[in-house]
C-alpha cells in the first residue's frame, strides 16, 4: 500500500503533531514510503514549522525511522538535511577496485574527482594501496583537494589469491559471502556514492548512488545490485545497448570518456606512418599480429603505393607477455624493416607518434563474437583523431560512434575492406589531408573540457533535484 503523500505534505505545513503521527505510522504500518519521500517531507516540515516544535519531535522521528527502516535510513535522513539546508558541502565517494592500475575507466573516475573537488568533498575509495600522487601523474590531473581511502577486502587478501587483482569473477555466489560488503558499508558515509569500477556486487547505501558502466561484463548473479542505484551512467551508446540486453536495465546518462591528446597546434607535419596504439593484450585481443600480416601483404601486393610507408605499433605490456613474445619472434623471422614495435613508451613519445602518423589502424573486435572483446568506446581512436590521424578502424563497438565512415575516417568489417580503404587514402593525398582535418575536428568533441562541463552540469542537476524538497 502506498503512503498518502498529499496528506503528509498538508500535515507537514500545518501541524507538527499530526505530521509526526502520520509519518511515524507510515513507518510502522510498513507502507511503501520511499527514502526520498521521507527525506523531502521532513525537510518540508522543518521549513514550515517553528523550530521549537520541530526540535521536540525530530529526535523521536529519527529514532522511529532507525527502528523501523534501519539505522542507515535515519543516518541518510540526517545527512540529507545537512546538505539540503546547506550546513556542509555534499560528500562524494568514488569507488574503483582498480584505482591502483592505470586504465581508461580509472582515468574517467579520477577526472570526475578533479571536476567535483571544488564544490564537493571528494574521497576516492580503493581496495589496494595507491597514492593520490600516482593518479595525478598517470592522468595529468590535479587532485589536491581530494582524499583517498583504502578499504581492504579480506576475501581478496587471502593467501593464494593474486596480490594485486580484485576479480569479482572469483566469487562463488552460491558458496561465498558477498566480499564487497565493506565497500557497501563505506558507501553509506557519502551523500553521493559513485561506483566507477562496474562492480555490480556493491550494494549502495548513500542517498544518491551512481553506477558508471564502461561495459556490463558479467551476467546477473545473486549479488547483483545495479538496479538499486539511483542512476546508471554509460560511456557509449554501444555500452548502453548491452546494459539493456544483458541486464534489462535502462541507463540514464551518457558521458563519453575524456580524451586529452590534442596537439599544441594544428595542422601538423605528417610522415608516411600507419600507427596502431593499443595494449599488447596477453590473449591477443587487440590483434597486432594480424595487423602486421595485413601490412606485409599490402607491401607485397602494392610495392609502388606502399614505398616509404611504415607500420608503428605502440602499446603497454606487462613484463612477461607471451603474445608480445610471439610478435617479436614473428618480426625476427620475417625480417620486417618497415615495422616498428614500441612497448611501454613514455607519454611524450606516444604524443610524438600520434603527431607524425598519417593513418591510424585499429583491429580490436574484428572476428570477435564476445561483445566484451569489442572496443566499448575506443579511446585511442579518439586520441589519434585529435592529432589528425585518419582512422581506419573496425566497424563495431563504440568506434562507430567516433568515426563517421567516409567523412572523418573509415570503418571496415573485413581485411579486404581495410586494405581497399587504406590504399584509397594512399593514392589520394588530397583526400587524406582533407579527412585529417575532419578527424581533428571530430576528435575535439571528446576533449577533457567537454567531459568536465558535462560532469559539472550533471552533478549540479543531481544536487538540485535530489537534495531539495
Amino acid at each position, binding site marked *: 500500500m502506498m503512503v498518502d503523500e498529499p496528506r503528509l505534505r498538508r500535515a507537514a505545513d500545518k501541524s507538527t503533531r499530526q505530521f509526526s503521527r502520520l509519518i511515524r505510522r507510515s513507518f510502522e504500518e510498513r507502507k511503501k514510503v520511499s527514502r526520498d519521500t521521507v527525506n523531502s517531507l521532513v525537510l518540508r516540515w522543518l521549513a514550515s514549522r*517553528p*523550530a521549537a516544535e520541530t526540535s521536540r519531535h*525530530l*529526535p523521536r522521528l529519527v*529514532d522511529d525511522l532507525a527502528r523501523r527502516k534501519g539505522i542507515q535510513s535515519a543516518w541518510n535522513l540526517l545527512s540529507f538535511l545537512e546538505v539540503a539546508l546547506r550546513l556542509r558541502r555534499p560528500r562524494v565517494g568514488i569507488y574503483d577496485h582498480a584505482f591502483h592500475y592505470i586504465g581508461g575507466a580509472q582515468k574517467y573516475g579520477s577526472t570526475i574527482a578533479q571536476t567535483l573537488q571544488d564544490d564537493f568533498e571528494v574521497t576516492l575509495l580503493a581496495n589496494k594501496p595507491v597514492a593520490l600522487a600516482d593518479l595525478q601523474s598517470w592522468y595529468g590531473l590535479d587532485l589536491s583537494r581530494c582524499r583517498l581511502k583504502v578499504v581492504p577486502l579480506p576475501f581478496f587478501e587471502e593467501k593464494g589469491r593474486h596480490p594485486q587483482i580484485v576479480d569479482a569473477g572469483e566469487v562463488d555466489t552460491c558458496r561465498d559471502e558477498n566480499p564487497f560488503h565493506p565497500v557497501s558499508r563505506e558507501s553509506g558515509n557519502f551523500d553521493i556514492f559513485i561506483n566507477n569500477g562496474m562492480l555490480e556486487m556493491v550494494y549502495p*547505501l548513500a542517498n544518491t548512488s551512481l553506477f558508471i558502466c564502461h561495459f556490463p561484463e558479467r551476467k546477473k548473479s545473486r549479488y547483483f545490485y545495479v538496479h538499486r542505484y539511483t542512476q546508471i551512467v554509460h560511456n557509449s551508446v554501444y555500452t548502453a545497448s548491452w546494459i539493456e540486453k544483458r541486464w534489462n536495465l535502462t541507463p540514464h546518462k551518457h558521458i563519453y570518456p575524456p580524451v586529452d591528446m590534442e596537439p599544441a597546434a594544428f595542422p601538423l607535419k605528417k610522415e608516411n606512418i600507419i600507427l596502431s596504439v593499443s595494449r599488447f593484450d596477453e590473449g591477443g585481443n587487440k590483434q597486432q599480429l594480424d595487423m602486421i600480416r595485413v601490412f606485409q601483404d599490402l607491401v607485397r601486393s602494392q610495392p609502388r603505393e606502399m614505398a616509404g610507408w611504415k607500420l608503428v605499433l605502440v602499446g603497454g605490456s606487462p613484463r612477461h607477455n607471451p603474445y608480445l613474445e610471439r610478435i617479436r619472434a614473428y618480426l625476427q623471422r620475417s625480417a620486417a624493416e618497415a615495422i616498428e614495435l614500441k612497448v611501454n613508451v613514455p607519454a611524450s613519445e606516444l604524443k610524438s607518434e600520434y603527431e607524425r602518423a598519417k593513418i591510424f589502424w585499429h583491429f580490436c573486435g574484428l572476428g570477435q563474437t564476445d561483445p566484451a572483446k569489442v572496443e566499448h568506446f575506443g579511446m585511442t581512436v579518439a586520441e589519434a583523431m585529435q592529432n589528425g590521424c585518419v582512422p581506419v578502424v573496425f566497424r563495431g563497438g563504440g568506434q562507430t560512434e567516433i568515426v563517421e565512415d567516409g567523412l572523418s575516417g573509415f570503418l571496415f568489417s573485413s581485411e579486404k575492406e581495410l586494405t581497399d580503404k587504406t590504399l584509397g587514402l594512399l593514392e589520394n593525398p588530397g583526400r587524406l589531408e582533407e579527412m585529417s582535418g575532419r578527424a581533428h575536428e571530430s576528435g575535439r568533441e571528446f576533449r577533457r573540457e567537454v567531459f568536465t562541463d558535462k560532469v559539472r552540469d550533471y552533478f549540479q542537476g543531481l544536487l538540485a533535484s535530489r537534495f531539495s524538497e
Partner: protein
Amino acid sequence: MKNIQQIESQIQKIKTALADERESVEDLETLIGQRIEAELWGLSKKELEKEAWDSFYILEKNKDCLEEEPIVSHRKLSGAVIVLYKRVLRALLRPYTKTILARQVRFNRELVRLHLANILRLEKIEERVVALETGTPTSRAEQG
C-alpha cells in the same frame, strides 16, 4: 529557514548519538532494516536452487504465527505502562486471535510442505533429465 543554528546543533547531536550504534552494527541487512533480496530473473540454475532453499528455510522458520513476539518499548518513562497495557490487551484478545491464527498456522504448514515436495520433485525430474541426456539408464522405480 528559522533558527538554522538550532536545527544544525540538533542534527549534530542526534548524529553523534547514532554514529556509535551504526558502527556497532556489523550485518548489512540489520543496518538497512531489511533482507537484501536477489532478483531471481537471470540467475543461474545453481543460484536459483540456493535462493529456493534460502526462502524455504525462512518460510519454515516463520510458519508458526502463534509464537508471540516479546512486547517492548523504547520509551524511558512511559514504556513500562505501555508494555503493561499491551500485555493485558494481548491476553484479553488471545482466545479470539488464537482461533484465527490456528487456521493460519495449519495453512502455513501445508504450504511449506507443498513447497518442499515441489523442490524435491523438481530435483528428481532434473536428475532424470540429466540421466536421459547422458544416456545413463534409470530404473522404473527411480522414475516413479
